[in-house]
């Protein structure tokens, strides 16, 4: 892993991903699983869980670094609403490799031109 290495992951959330994620994570907020409720509170429809989107950023970082044990830390900012049935593109790059064997990567997640996760910073084990 060296500075400038690109990271990319593409995934299209199917209509039931939020239902499976609600069960897996324990987050049953109805804005993610109930179409009618979501519209009643002014959303265009059910939206992705922010932490599911963060998990895609984590997956992009660990796959690029060579495994789930390579991720030391991850911070993200959530923006906007992630939608079902629209491709999520996680992209970023390794910005620095440090003397202690760790690396810093900066990433974001974009859907139809809208950033749903920005300013993501991952610390990885480079070796």
């Amino acid at each position: 892993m060296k500075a400038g290495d690109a990271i990319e992951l593409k995934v299209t959330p199917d209509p039931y991903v939020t239902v499976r994620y609600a069960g897996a994570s324990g987050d049953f907020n109805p804005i993610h699983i109930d179409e009618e409720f979501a519209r009643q509170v002014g959303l265009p429809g059910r939206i992705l869980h922010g932490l599911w989107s963060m998990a895609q950023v984590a997956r992009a970082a660990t796959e690029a670094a060579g495994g789930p044990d390579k991720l030391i830390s991850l911070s993200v900012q959530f923006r906007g609403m992630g939608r079902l049935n629209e491709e999520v593109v996680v992209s970023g790059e390794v910005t620095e490799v440090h003397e202690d064997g760790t690396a810093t990567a900066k990433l974001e997640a974009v859907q139809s031109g809208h950033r749903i996760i920005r300013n993501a910073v991952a610390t990885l084990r480079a070796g």
Partner: protein
Amino acid sequence: MPLPTDKIGKTYPAAVYAVGREKIREYAAAVGETNPLHFDVEAARAAGYSDVLAPPMFAVVYAGRMLGPVLFDPELEINFAMLLHGSQEFVWGRAVVAGDEISTTAEITEIAMRGELAFYVLRTDSVNQRGETVCTGTWTNIIRGVKDA
């Protein structure tokens, strides 16, 4: 109504989460993980783990359980309908595998207005059954439409 800034520093008692093999598989599948370490006991053992390995973001399962008691704490006066998840940070320590028992405590580290938004920041500290830190989480929740007067 002023923000309850006197609650900065409030702590919440530890909750213990028993990590199950099928729960790791269920979570890993729900987020699209394909690495055999999360699904295949033999692959995990061959890599030196005692059982299937939790993906790092599995922290939302064991540490996220602290969020409910905090967000619904009447002393914090949070309007749940106006709640947004603003940002999130995790710092990981020891690996989490099926069979672990993870104990998580929570503390309110910040309550502050920034413009029209109220920020409630929560820190979670999760340790395994040996007392080793497995994850520290920083959960930044934003409440819209708060009048701090």
